[in-house]
């Protein structure tokens, strides 16, 4: 019977009333929960829970950090702080390289602009001397 189409062409779904009831219940539950998480009491409770966790876990965290630091020192290995400081310095270097890269781009653009600009007929662009264009020979070391 459930397979038979209804008058408007849709199949009867025996679960539909259950689904509708479920949705109604979830709506009501959702609204109650939204009101709850919006309350001062909820903010206070979650804050207290987080604070307790931080307070309880802090001594363990510090102990592990100290033990790790000592172990690394004894093994002549860089500590976490050392590695982090290198990473920070790398970012600074990267930034300076980026600035240099931008300046080079700018210079290149200006050169292209100068080269591409129409020149007056009398003025000749300076040609690089052949001497300068030749590759420098490797310096003699005296060794044979």
């Amino acid at each position, binding site marked *: 019977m459930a397979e038979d189409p209804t008058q408007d062409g849709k199949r009867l779904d025996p679960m539909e009333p259950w689904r509708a009831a479920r949705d109604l219940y979830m709506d009501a539950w*959702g609204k109650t929960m939204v009101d709850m998480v919006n309350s001062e009491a909820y903010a206070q409770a979650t804050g207290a829970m987080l*604070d307790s966790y931080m307070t309880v876990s802090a001594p363990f965290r510090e102990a592990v950090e100290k033990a790790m630091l000592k172990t690394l020192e004894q093994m002549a290995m860089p500590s976490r702080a050392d590695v982090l400081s290198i990473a920070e310095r790398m970012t600074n270097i990267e930034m300076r390289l980026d600035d240099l890269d931008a300046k080079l781009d700018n210079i290149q653009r200006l050169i292209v602009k100068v080269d591409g600009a129409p020149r007056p007929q009398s003025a000749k662009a300076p040609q690089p001397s052949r001497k300068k264009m030749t590759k420098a020979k490797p310096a003699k070391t005296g060794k044979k």
Partner: protein
Amino acid sequence: MAEAMATTDPVTAAAERLQTLNKAMTTKAVIAQTPKELVWTLNKAKLYRYVPVLRKEKRHPIPLLLVFALMNRPYILDLRRGHSFVEYMLNKGYDLYLLDWGVPGPEDKNLRFDDYTLDYMPRAIRKLKAISGVQEFSLLGWCIGAILTTIYAALRGDEGLRNLILLTAPLDFSNKQSLTFARWTDERYFDVDKVLAAFGNMPGEMIDYGAKALKPVENYVGNYVKLWDNIDDPRMVEGWHAMNTWVTDNVPLAGGVFRQLIVDLYRDDKLMRGELLIRGERVELSRIHANLLTVIAEGDHITPSCQSEPVMSKVSSTDKELFRVKGGHIGIMAGSGASKYTWPHIDGWLASRSQ
């Protein structure tokens, strides 16, 4: 015949549904498929340029830079083929760039809004200008990305920013009663320094919990019930799968930024009051002159409209528009109605201002 049996047999059908459910909940969908090239990097940040689909003469000359939030992946803007804001805008002829902030590591725990807006963004924009060969550009900031773009526009807006689009921008924090996050992070209950001393960066899982806990039943129960109810609809399952992939891909927030967000913005509302200092420079919203489009999601429970509206009266832009659209914080750009309402409106507004 065997196939017909398989589809009508209720046990097999139930098994297939469970398999689909399991796949959608436990695997990663294929997302962010629009071709792009990496054109610039700095630390974890990457600037991508999407491969244009129209010839240069058919494209808008002013490039558009997309800046998403710091604690989520930006591929929500390019979620899946056939339903991607990036794809849509490329087809409309935009030269499109995306700034991906990446995942901050422990070494980035001191990064602040100052660094993102004065070190990263100007350099990425400099590269964008060099590649596009145009000195003007448009900026689209979404969520925390809208805070970054607003700060940038106020401090460096005179460096070629023509159009500014703010999506669900949390800028005004004065209405504490409407802001659940403000209540949770009130200094009486939440010790931000203690949390950051323990974690360095704010863990993505904690941010994710905070966002989901605003509507716990919808996010932790209703979301999965909705999937089960539509398990026989492949298009719906595909969309759910892609969104779930994005939602579960959490990124930590750099400790310095998190502290500024909580103390300077949620608690002290410094941006709207004109008291926010970025490397000693006061962020004055009245210094924003770019054409401004602010998009507000009417059903946004993360950034209620009262956080985005007041910026309209603070800026000096003569060309400004406030656009309200039905939907939630993410839904207005990635939901099923996005391609009908939000994207065409953004394109319509931006196209005439990108000539």
